[in-house]
């Protein structure tokens, strides 16, 4: 009823909008008043969240890969170092890779100091990310419970909880009775997989994975960073082992610095640049059940039975499972791994036994030898790489972007990134992170 160009309301809000835009861009921000205003004009005034660009001839920095990590890197380069002459190039669409395929879990209960550093930074940044990006990423610190279902696991988790305490990460061990209190639907008695305890991180949780990518993309676009989708890198231009640009499906783009942030496809880019990585790509799967009423209000990870579970806001149970046992780029995953995951979870959560699977999907994860990431310089001057997040990259997006931006700007990894250089494999200082993957991949 309020729509129509002769309508007084329309004229009023149109004038108000123009006035506001000229003054301080209030309408460009998502806010109560913008929702209120749009509600009166059939939501016709929303702009595209980020601008689509064609590549320019030259940029100071090119980020190859428009997932969470790539966009976060571009964002923190702009925010922390005031560099906006950046292109983020993506072969598909924003957030269409692993950023849109994970189980959205955020936690930082790691064992090693170097891992805790970057994952805790990340979790900390997630807490205020919605406000910072002016985009609701639906961060929900609902708590993450890591079950111990064997004596060995209990001992290992106790060790992790001590390491967390030393490094200031808020976690604690809880007893089986407390587990039952936190998750009433759980079967703690076994017989095959009794719950002996759990590591509880109350500040862990979930976030809307797509929104993280979209929020970063929108803010990057706001800073004047070019986001170029449907643009695949097909070659790397070097001059005397120094990077000078990339060859793409949308033509040649020159750049002083390039950073590969391509997760499962990092090895292919590295191959174009003339070196090999200590990485193997495998398909990792997840699935959701049909939507049901709320039955679980935290994230449960069960390492022994090889699965993890949470409930989305839509009511679907989000279930993450095992990775394939062999290298592939199929983005499907083999059926037997779904069966394995679900079979085991049904023992721990008998209530889900009658649920049907709604969707299943796979993503290509980049696994390193020690299951810890790589944020590093490469043999090519001016070429940086961020990869190897394997099965747990989503939780690290803000921290990884922060550390990678620091490395690209200073041309040297900072405190957060330096333990994760490629050299560690040659030097033998692996980051022995048994907790790196929630389940033993």
């Amino acid at each position, binding site marked *: 009823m309020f729509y129509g160009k002769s309508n007084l309301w329309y004229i009023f809000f149109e004038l108000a909008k123009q006035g506001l835009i000229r003054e301080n861009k209030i309408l460009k921000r998502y806010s109560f008043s913008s929702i209120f205003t749009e509600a009166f004009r059939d939501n016709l005034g929303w702009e595209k969240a980020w601008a689509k660009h064609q590549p320019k001839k030259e940029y100071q920095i090119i980020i190859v890969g428009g997932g969470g990590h790539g966009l976060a890197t571009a964002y923190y380069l702009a925010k922390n170092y005031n560099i906006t002459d950046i292109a983020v190039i993506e072969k598909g669409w924003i957030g269409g890779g692993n950023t849109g395929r994970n189980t959205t879990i955020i936690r930082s209960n790691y064992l090693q100091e170097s891992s805790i550093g970057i994952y805790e930074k990340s979790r900390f940044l997630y807490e205020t990310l919605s406000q910072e990006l002016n985009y609701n990423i639906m961060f929900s610190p609902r708590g993450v419970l890591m079950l111990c279902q064997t004596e060995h696991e209990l001992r290992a988790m106790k060790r992790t909880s001590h390491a967390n305490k030393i490094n200031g990460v808020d976690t604690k061990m809880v007893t089986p009775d407390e587990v039952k209190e936190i998750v009433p639907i759980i079967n703690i008695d076994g017989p095959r997989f009794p719950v002996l305890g759990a590591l509880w991180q109350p500040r862990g949780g979930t976030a809307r994975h797509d929104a993280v990518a979209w929020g970063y993309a929108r803010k990057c676009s706001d800073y004047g960073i070019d986001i170029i989708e449907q643009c695949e890198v097909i070659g790397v231009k070097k001059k005397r082992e120094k990077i000078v640009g990339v060859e793409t499906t949308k033509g040649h783009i020159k750049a002083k610095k390039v950073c590969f942030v391509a997760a499962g496809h990092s090895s292919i880019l590295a191959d174009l640049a003339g070196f090999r990585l200590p990485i193997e790509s495998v398909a990792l799967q997840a699935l959701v059940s049909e939507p049901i009423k709320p039955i679980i209000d935290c994230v449960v990870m069960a390492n022994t039975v090889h699965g993890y579970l949470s409930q989305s806001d839509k009511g679907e149970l989000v279930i993450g499972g095992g990775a394939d*046992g062999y*290298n592939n780029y199929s983005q499907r995953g083999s059926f037997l791994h779904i069966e394995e995951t679900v079979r085991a979870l049904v023992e721990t959560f008998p209530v889900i036994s009658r649920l049907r699977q709604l969707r299943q999907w796979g993503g290509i994860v980049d696994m390193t030898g020690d299951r810890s990431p790589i944020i590093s310089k490469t043999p090519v001057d001016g070429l940086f790489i961020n990869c190897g997040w394997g099965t747990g990259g989503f939780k690290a997006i803000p921290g990884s972007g922060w550390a990678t931006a620091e490395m690209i700007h200073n041309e040297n990894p900072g405190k957060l990134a330096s333990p994760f250089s490629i050299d560690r*494999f040659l030097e033998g200082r692996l980051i022995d992170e048994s907790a790196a993957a929630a389940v033993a991949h």
Partner: protein
Amino acid sequence: MLYLFCPTCQRDCDETELSCGGQAHLIRRDHASNDKDFYKYLYERKNDKGIIFERWRHVYGCGKWFHTARCTITNQVFGSYSAKEVQPPKSILANIRRSRVDFKGWVK
């Protein structure tokens, strides 16, 4: 589900009977080699998107190793060959060329 042919048992076996051993034909240098060689042997991988040659072990069968050629995009299998081979035999390469005209051959 992958079905691979075990050259020792002379029969097809499914994925659940097998265990993948990763990239085939890696070279392990002797004691005189340096750290870089050892790093290459332990960690550095081709990780190709396309045709790969890999090692498999028939764990819930004969327990023996064998080699396989497979496409990592479609999971199409081009046949198995003995673990004793130091490079893919001609018959396997011909098999690959029959369905992939642009296949460039095995690279070390």
